[in-house]
């Protein structure tokens, strides 16, 4: 029995399909990259705020002032760290593409004391490659808002 000849796509049909696909990706990929970038920035401030709050709790629990630095030159390799003069002090890195933005109100050192207060108040400002910014603010009362 003779089967019907198989008719495939023509080159023009294939070209149109690829063109449409290309247009969809041209809009889709930057949009997705924007979205994931903004989540990255948000996540960075969440992490910083969490470390500040944890340091405050630790200062209250142990009675030892916790000294946080948001300056690379003050941390052994990390972007931000706790420096209590010990050797096992923790340090963390900012995600790829996220940097500090030094501006008015930027404060790179916070000392959390045993009474739950911070000796320093100010903001930590971070920005991504596109220049989008997000901040964490620390108040004298020890309140950390992000």
């Amino acid at each position: 029995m003779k089967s019907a000849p198989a008719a495939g796509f023509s080159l023009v049909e294939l070209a149109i399909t690829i063109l449409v696909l290309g247009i969809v990706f041209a809009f889709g990929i930057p949009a997705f990259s924007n979205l994931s970038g903004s989540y990255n920035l948000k996540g960075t401030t969440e992490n910083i705020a969490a470390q500040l709050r944890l340091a405050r709790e630790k200062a209250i629990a142990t009675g030892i002032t916790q000294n946080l630095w948001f300056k690379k030159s003050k941390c052994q390799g990390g972007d931000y760290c706790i420096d209590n003069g010990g050797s096992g002090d923790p340090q963390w890195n900012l995600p790829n593409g996220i940097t500090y933005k030094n501006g008015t109100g930027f404060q790179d050192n916070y000392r959390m004391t045993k009474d739950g207060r911070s000796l320093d108040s100010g903001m930590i400002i971070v920005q991504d490659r596109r220049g989008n910014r997000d901040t964490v603010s620390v108040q004298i009362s020890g309140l950390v808002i992000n």
Partner: protein
Amino acid sequence: MLRFSAPRSERGTSLAELMVALVVLSIGLLAVAQLFPAGSRGQVQDRMLTAASYYAQEKIEGFVNVPWSDTKLDVGRHPASGTENLGAWQRYYDVAIHDPPLDN
């Protein structure tokens, strides 16, 4: 030139059918797309709410070393009128006397 014609039983979908299918699909996609702004709005609202609870907690912690005789703990609303302005947030607190026995 060689021309193939498919037998009657193997005809594909017509353009009109394809267009109708695309319209139906895009209506569905648009409905799903509405969820994204709604989710983003909810996220901002929840962030504000979280920050508000931190502000409330801050106020409570501030009373730890305040003696009962302090005017900050006078019965009534503090401040008596208006609110404390905290940027995007407004704060006030009420002091009330609960009749004994208390739950705890």
